[in-house]
């Protein structure tokens, strides 16, 4: 019982440190730039407009409420990419701390993820505005936090693994950027995968496909996905989270000397 209390206390301390670090990093990113916070919105928005135009020109099969479909997929993917990309180098960026202070390195991985949550919230607000514009019932957006929770667990699991690998492999960042590029096209962000194709069956193995399609089904199209599918996705998110954390914990004692 004592052990559990101590563990919870440690987790709470780590979370509070991560939050402080995330706030500081978020402030730093906005430092001095005139557009500041608006730059976060400008980037996905501009990309969205380009894709919207391309989608309209290229694809013949019109997807119902395409702008909503595209925007939601895009901001979810961007969140995944931003967090994982910076996770690859999070340990070396903070090597000064890790080598000279007794600090829990998990805090840096968590802080890294949290700082992008702030900008993601802004993007969701814009998405809500879009929803109103399209006359979609905003109430379904309330389901998003639940989906996002599991999505976040999955991303954390990947972050912890990448952070650990990134200590030993300095060009992991480059490798991951290539993987990210591949995932962008492999995931149905700006297109729709027709069912009963080989591509569709392969997509089952792409976690991003699941999170984006579940979100879209619930929020935009007002359909409840298969319960078994959602249940499986949540279980797998939890497994990936603990797997990543396990890899991190096993290696963290060696970080100080390898950095």
């Amino acid at each position, binding site marked *: 019982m004592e052990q559990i209390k101590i563990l919870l206390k440690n987790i709470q*301390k780590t979370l*509070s*440190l991560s939050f*402080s*670090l995330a706030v*500081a990093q978020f*402030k*730093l990113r906005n*430092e*001095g730039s005139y557009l500041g916070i608006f730059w976060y919105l400008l980037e996905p928005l501009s990309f969205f407009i380009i894709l919207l135009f391309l989608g309209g020109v290229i694809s013949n099969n019109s997807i119902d409420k395409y702008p909503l479909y595209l925007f939601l997929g895009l901001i979810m993917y961007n969140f995944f990419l931003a967090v994982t990309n910076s996770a690859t180098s999070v340990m070396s960026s903070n090597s*000064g*701390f*890790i*080598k*000279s*202070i*007794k*600090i829990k390195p998990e805090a840096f991985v968590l802080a890294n993820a949290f700082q992008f949550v702030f900008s993601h919230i802004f993007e969701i607000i814009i998405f809500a505005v879009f929803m109103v514009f399209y006359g979609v019932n905003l109430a379904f957006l309330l389901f998003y936090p639940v989906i996002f929770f599991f999505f976040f667990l999955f991303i954390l699991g990947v972050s912890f693994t990448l952070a650990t690998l990134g200590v030993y*492999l*300095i*060009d*992991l960042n480059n*490798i991951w950027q290539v993987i990210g590029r591949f995932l962008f096209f492999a995931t149905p962000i700006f297109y729709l995968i027709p069912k009963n194709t080989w591509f569709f069956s392969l997509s089952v193995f792409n976690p991003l496909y699941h999170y984006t399609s579940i979100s879209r089904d619930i929020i935009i199209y007002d359909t409840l996905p298969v319960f078994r599918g959602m249940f499986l996705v949540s279980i797998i998110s939890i497994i990936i989270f603990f797997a990543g954390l396990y890899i991190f914990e096993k290696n963290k*004692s*060696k970080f*100080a*000397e*390898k950095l």
Partner: protein
Amino acid sequence: MKKIRANLRKNYNIMIRVELKNASKIFSIDFRRDKGSLARLLKVLSGKTEKQERVAVKDISFTARSGEIIGLVGRNGAGKSTLLKLIAGIYETSNGTIKTDGELVYLTSLGLGLMPKLTMRENIFLSGSILGLEQKEVRQRFSQIVDFSGLHDFVDLKVYQFSSGMVTRLSFSTTFFCIKHKNPDILLIDEVFGTVGDFDFERKASEKMEELIKGGATVVLASHDLDTIKKYCNRVIWLNEGEIFGAGNPQEIISKYLSM
């Protein structure tokens, strides 16, 4: 029965706070970070693995009890920092065991964690978090930190505009009061002397350092400043090339060290 014994131990003040048994640290130095994955892969495939190891600390055993102030002397590269980092848990021992009992603080360079683009206020809260305090605890100490540093007028100024003396005052002040708040049982000090502050601040800072060292915690102090060591420590350990060359009375050990 266990509780009674523990209480007795506490009362007699003979509690062991730090215990090292045959602790060693071996660094493998074939690990070169500037290798890309391709180069690394080629090396692995070619089968040549030049494994070089450096023994930083070898077979160290000693105990530190509650309230003791132990000095650590030795040449550069003797392994003092490595030893302290091992005790702090920053490095893991390659061999042997290290046990610590109680809240531990490891102090190396001041000014770590200072983000120049943030204001003094934001930096105090950030440093406080990094040192392990909660936001409300930092708030409790905030005015003390500002008062001691003498930088009231600059609280909302960005730190990159501070002079180096101001940075020193800020770092020292923040670090000192945060550590004071944590009231650690074990304090590891790694050559944190010789501030860049002016004469007045230097004097204030030395007083505070003395307060910290004599505050009742178990202190292990690594320094090149032998006068400071003689002044505060009741025991001195002389480390040379990773091994203990001598341990005992400060005057004795220091003169042995100097005559080497």
